[in-house]
């Protein structure tokens, strides 16, 4: 295979990447460090990056005061359900928009993208009225059903599907394969990186969702994590260190999750052999 470049160049690149990685993570490191500090140690000049003692009490207190583990389970359920449903509906819609020409298909696509521009704050009130009519207030249906598909996901998958060589499908069509079969046997396996990416972003968006659950869920036991931790994260007289501990708790599961799945969607596939 290809030869590796000189050791000096390699070291420089690694150091550069490391430097940028640390720089970009300073705010996060700050949050992490503060979550272990005592309140009076949080304000010093010059700012200190290492807590003198690791104080886990902030975490213990956060878990005591609110049912954090319950919130994690609730949010996992909702976010996973939304992600799975979006995988199905977005990929089907995206395939249609990428490959099937029908009257007005480009208008449908434009309107879809236009909806990305409408802030969720605007649609919230009408959506609430609809959900109320269905009798879904305080139920997970209200958090899941309206988000079964998303313009963002459809757009992302469409872009990737359009990059897949048409010849692959043409051969299958000549062999008499149905659209659905082509979709399932050719398009889906080739789009794994895109599907992983979309799933990750969908999951993330719903993990971090705050306003909508706050509005439709009333039962504290059913609440989502961001609303749960907001009792620490916002509020003007709350303790800084507690805020940071709660924020860290909400972020860490996703970082760990990402670490384990990132390989899947960046190294999942190589279509090089198929293009000849």
């Amino acid at each position, binding site marked *: 295979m290809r030869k590796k470049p000189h050791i000096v160049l390699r070291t420089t690149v690694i150091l550069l990447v490391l430097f940028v990685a640390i720089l970009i993570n300073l705010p996060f490191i*700050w949050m992490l460090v503060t979550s272990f500090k005592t309140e009076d140690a949080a304000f010093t000049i*010059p700012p200190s990056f290492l807590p003198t003692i690791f104080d886990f009490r902030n975490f213990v207190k956060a878990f005591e005061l609110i049912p954090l583990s319950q919130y994690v389970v609730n949010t996992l359920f909702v976010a996973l359900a939304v992600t799975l449903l979006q995988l199905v509906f977005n990929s089907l819609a995206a395939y249609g928009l990428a490959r099937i020409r029908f009257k007005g298909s480009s208008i449908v696509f434009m309107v879809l993208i236009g909806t990305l521009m409408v802030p969720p704050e605007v649609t919230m009130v009408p959506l609430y009225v609809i959900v109320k009519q269905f009798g879904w207030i305080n139920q997970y249906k209200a958090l899941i059903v309206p988000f079964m598909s998303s313009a963002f996901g459809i757009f992302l998958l469409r872009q990737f599907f359009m990059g897949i060589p048409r010849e692959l499908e043409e051969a299958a069509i000549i062999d008499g394969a149905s659209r659905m079969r082509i979709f399932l046997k050719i398009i889906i396996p080739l789009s794994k990186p895109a599907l992983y990416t979309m799933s990750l972003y969908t999951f993330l968006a719903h993990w971090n969702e705050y306003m909508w659950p706050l509005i439709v869920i009333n039962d504290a036991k059913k609440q989502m994590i961001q609303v749960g931790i907001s009792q620490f994260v916002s509020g003007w007289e709350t303790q800084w260190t507690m805020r940071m501990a709660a924020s860290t708790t909400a972020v860490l599961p996703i*970082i760990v999750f990402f670490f384990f799945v990132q390989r899947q969607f960046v190294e999942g596939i190589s279509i090089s052999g198929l293009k000849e």
Partner: protein
Amino acid sequence: MKWVGLENYIRMFETPDFWGSLWTTVLYVLGTVVPSVILGLLIAMLLNIEWLKGKGIFRTLFYIPVVTSMAAAAVIWGWLYEPNFGLVNYFLSWFGIKSIKWLSDPNYALLGLIIVGVWKRVGYNMVLFLAGLQTIPRTYYEAAEIDGATSWDKFRSITLPLLSPTTLFVVIMQFIASFRVFVSVSVMTRGGPAKSTQVITYYLYENAFRYLKFGYASAIAVFMFALMVVLTLIQFAISKKRVHYS
């Protein structure tokens, strides 16, 4: 409730605040789109180098700002920007730069938000570019190397064209995300100081949920929708020649 016809739209176009917030949004979009797309691509290419060790860890590190909820991130940044003993001014003082009142100075507040916006989105774009880079067949590069192509040649004639569908997607998504910036504004500056960071989504939000002018807010939303459709059409038209689909 009463029917007011086009009154809300007429009022919108007559209000200096509306135009002001649109202009602030344009500045924010210009300030964030280019750096976050270019940095995202650069980092993706660095992390796509075959011999780089610890890719998984690096990818995760670059992704951390993305997963941090904006509400929490904005709180932290508000603190980092604190003029007297925030970390940002502390670092700047090493280079002899005098204390900047990041979020309380109308001349700097928007820049402060732009930095946070870029910081938050670089990792996002990086992941999209990484996924896009994976779909470029390695054989293309190998063939080019046999022909004696330099790294720059390979980037220009293989990576860029084959990555163009991804790039188009990233640019449009970044554009939309920047246009819709809201949480950082509402947590860090609340549109101030002196309206210098009043972007259009925040203007809309204030009208809807603070001043309770729903009709007027809806008119702004419809305007944003229409604007987006037009801008996307233009982007697609421009990119038609440039984007390469296999």
